[in-house]
Structure formats: C-alpha cells, structure tokens
C-alpha cells in the first residue's frame, strides 16, 4: 500500500472518489435503508477522509479503488458488529461469517446490482423530477449539496430541503432495496432514461457558464447511462441510443467554448477539436441501438447528433436527413425546442422562407422561457437571406428576453455582425 505514485498518475483516477461514493452509497443503502442515510454518509466520509490523509502524505496506492473498498468494508464490518444485537440486519448478518458475507456484497456484480437498485429507487415517480435528479446526484454520483446547487443553479439550502423531503417520502414508502426488481425495471426504465437525459441536459446547456460543472454533469450522465445500458431487455436499444447521444454531444465539448469562455456555435467550431474516440464509441452504440421495437426520441436525437459529427463542414452537412429526424421527433414528442430546431434545419436544407414559415406555424406554442431561442432562430433566418436590418431587430428582441450572461454575450456578437454586414451593403 505504500508504493508512491506521482501526481500525473493520480490524474488517471479522475472522479474516482465520486464513482466510489456512488458504489458505497448503493451498497450501504441496500443494507441500512433510506432511514439511515446519515450513518451511511458518515461511513463514506470517514473512508474518504482516511484516504485523503494517507494518500496526501504517502502517495496514491497502486490500486486506489481496492484500497478504498477495503477501508469501507472494514468500517462496515465494525458498524455491523456494533449493531449485532439489533433486529433488521440480524438475520442477514448474524454469526461468524460476517466478513464473508460482507465480501459478497463487494463483488463487482453485486456492486453493479446495488447501484442499479439505488438508481431505480431514486427515480421514484412519487418524487418530482427535480427531487429525482438531486437524489440521483447525491446518492449515485457523490455530489454534496453545494455541488448540486451549483449544477442546478439553486441554493445549497434549497437542495438540502428538497433532498430531506425526498428521502422522507422514500422512507414512508418503506422501499425494500433487496426485493427482486425485474418488474420495476420495465415500469420505471423510461423515468430512469428521462432523469439521465435531464442530468445530461443540465450539463450540456451552458447557462451556468461554468464549464467544469457542465462537464462533470455530462460525465455523470454518461456513467449512469453505461450502467443502465448493461441491463438486458427490450429497453436496452433505447439505453444505447441515449448513451450514443451523450457521447456525440460530449465529443464536441472541446470546441464549444473559446479561450474567453464564450460560446462558439456549431457553424464556426473547429471540427478538428472534436473527440474522435467518443464519436467512434457513439457510432457503434447507435448501430447497436437500431435493434429496437420502437424509435425513441433518443434514437432520433442521437442520429441528428451523429450526422453533425460525421459532416466535414457545416455547409456540407446532410440537412435533409436532419430535417426528417426533427420532423419525426416533433411527431413523437411535442417539444417546442425540437420544433425550433426543425425550422432551423428546414431553413438550411431548403431556404430561409421555408424556415420562417415553419416558425410562424409554431409561434403560439412557444413559452416564455424559450422565447429568446425562437427570436434568435428567426433572426438567423433573416441573416441567412441577407435582410440584416430585420435580423438585427429580432436579435435585439432575443437579447432582451434572454436571462443568462452567456446567451446575452452570444447574441450581442450577432448584433455586431448584423451591423457590419449592413455597413458593407451601403
């Protein structure tokens, strides 16, 4: 345990503590239930504290994950011995074979099973979407309250309250995390997919302006999607599609923000910065996802994303296929953002007239929080047909409606571009 590694080696274990926290939480919650989450948090915290103190001085051990597992196992055994005369756990962990039984819990297969059980428990339809997301980030991803607050643009206090409420409702339902959960998988897989998709979306949209947090959320979403796509069944192709979508989007991360932290739109991104390995992984997942009984929104979004990733340039993108995918997407899921993107794709494939016509059709369905996207899309179409004065006035509307700094910066650049183009024409 005392082999010293260098700092650069320790980089290879990025997010190890987070992953480990999710594993430990899942194992322990299966044993102790939601009503003992403070105890569980203490055991986890003590394990990491021990690791931090030792590794800081003696270096990272050769097998960091095994080291952490061993420490948490020992802490768990101590805890179980302390509680040996209390009921609930008694039958399961009575007698001499305590160590062996604990070892079994820490087998890879069991850990994975525990994580899935915990994830499906967090995605309980009894909780609202926000509570499901927060609880998932807390339990499966080892985020603390302030990290969740940062990620979801909320306050630590609000997160604390929401998680407390969520745990309480789960306690009241008295969920048995050891019961067979095959039926639950089928009933709840859609919710689990949605929650992973929402976590990913929180990371992918750039409202927080903090690219570290954004990346962390996308990374967590991909990790959960990998976990879920390991479950066999009819829903598996859909899980593959979701994971493919996440990979395709993450592949473009390195090109999305410039050195000043400003957003770069797809059109002007340096495509050589896209992560080819992730695109490759996404492509093979997308191929595996084709074996599905129904075409889900994830299939369509992943396909759109893959077309962008494959295109050599913005101009040579297969806009026709993208338009068709958006058309199908709006048919399954009446999502106004998909409608706006449909109009944009149409304007690239056909012309700005077609796009503008589509926008007119959907104008009434656009709710206030996304109005700025609608007007920015409209402005871009006027820009495309070189009506720069009109483009500028719609960008101005979009600017006034947008709430986030990054969006405002992005739109004000567009306004400047309109001014420049107008000058050229005069």
């Amino acid at each position, binding site marked *: 345990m005392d082999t010293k590694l*260098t*700092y650069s080696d320790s980089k290879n274990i990025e997010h190890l503590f987070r992953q480990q*926290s999710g594993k430990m939480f899942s194992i322990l919650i299966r044993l102790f239930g939601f009503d003992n989450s403070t105890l569980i948090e203490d055991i986890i915290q003590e394990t990491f504290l021990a690791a*931090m103190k030792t590794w800081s*001085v003696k270096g990272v051990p050769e097998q960091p994950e095994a080291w952490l597992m061993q420490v948490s196992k020992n802490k768990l055994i101590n805890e179980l011995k302390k509680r040996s005369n209390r009921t609930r756990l008694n039958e399961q962990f009575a007698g001499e074979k305590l160590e062996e039984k604990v070892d079994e819990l820490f087998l890879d297969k069991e850990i994975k099973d525990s994580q899935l059980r915990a994830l499906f428990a967090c995605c309980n339809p009894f909780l609202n979407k926000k509570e499901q997301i927060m609880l998932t980030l807390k339990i499966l991803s080892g985020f603390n309250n*302030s990290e969740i607050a940062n990620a979801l643009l909320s306050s630590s206090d609000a997160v604390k309250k929401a998680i407390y409420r969520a745990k309480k409702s789960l306690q009241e339902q008295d969920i048995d995390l050891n019961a067979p959960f095959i039926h639950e998988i089928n009933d709840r897989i859609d919710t689990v997919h949605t929650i992973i998709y929402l976590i990913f979306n929180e990371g992918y949209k750039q409202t927080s302006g903090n690219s570290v947090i954004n990346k962390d959320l996308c990374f967590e979403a991909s990790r959960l999607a990998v976990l879920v796509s390991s479950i066999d069944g009819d829903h598996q192709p859909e899980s593959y599609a979701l994971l493919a979508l996440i990979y395709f989007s993450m592949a473009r991360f390195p090109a999305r923000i410039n050195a000043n932290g400003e957003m770069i739109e797809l059109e002007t991104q340096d495509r050589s910065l896209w992560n080819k390995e992730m695109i490759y992984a996404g492509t093979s997942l997308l191929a595996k996802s084709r074996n599905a009984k129904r075409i889900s929104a994830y299939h369509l979004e992943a396909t759109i994303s893959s077309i962008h990733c494959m295109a050599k340039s913005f101009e040579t993108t297969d806009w026709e296929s993208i338009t068709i995918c958006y058309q199908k997407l709006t048919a399954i899921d009446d999502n106004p953002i998909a409608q706006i993107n449909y109009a944009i794709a149409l304007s690239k494939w056909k012309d700005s007239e077609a796009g503008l016509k589509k926008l007119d059709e959907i104008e009434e369905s656009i709710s206030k929080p996304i109005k700025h996207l609608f007007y920015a899309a409209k402005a871009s179409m006027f820009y495309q047909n070189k009506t720069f004065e009109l483009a500028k006035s719609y960008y101005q509307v979009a600017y006034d409606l947008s709430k986030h700094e990054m969006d405002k910066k992005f739109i004000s650049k567009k306004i400047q571009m309109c001014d420049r183009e107008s000058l050229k024409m005069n």
Partner: protein
Amino acid sequence: MKKYMLILFEEENMYTDFSPEEMQKEIGEHMKWIETLGDHYDSGEPLMPHAKSVKGKDKVVTDGPYIESKELVSGFYILNAESLDEATELSKGCPVLRLGGNIEVREVMKM
C-alpha cells in the same frame, strides 16, 4: 543537508463539508506540492484524530489530544533542507495552509 519536521495542525472538522470530489482534489494538491519538493521530501505520516494523553508523575490518563484548542496535530512531514529558513520557505507550499491549517517547522536534532 539537515532534516526538518513539519508538524501540521488542523481543526478537527476542517473537512466535514468536503465532497468526495473535493477530497480527491485535495490529494492532488498535496501530490503537486510533494512533486515540487523533489529531493527535499523525505517522508511523512498522517495521524488518527483520537488520542489519549498521559500527564506527569501521577500518569493521569485523559481522552483527547494534549493541547487545549480546536486544532490538533494531524500529521507530519520530514523534509531535507539546508537551514530552518529554507525548510520554512518550503513549507509555505503545503496545501493545508490554504484551508486555514497551521504548520510548525522544527529541526530534527542530530546525535
């Protein structure tokens, strides 16, 4: 080269609110510092927080660390340096200072 002991003092609950990710980052900070120390680094040991103290002729045993403050000795490093001043300068890079911890630098006596 002489040897110097860096005695680290930290508040007991300095890391209570740290998330797993933050703790892992903290290790990275220490590793970075140790890497910059190069040959100046000799060894180190972390200490468990709980303690007993034994006092005086009567050998009175009490629970808890000896010093009467919220801070306790959380570990130590041994560094190689030419002088107390150099060792002190080197200790300034230690990440515990950033979090409000303190360091005492002492020369190891040679027999």
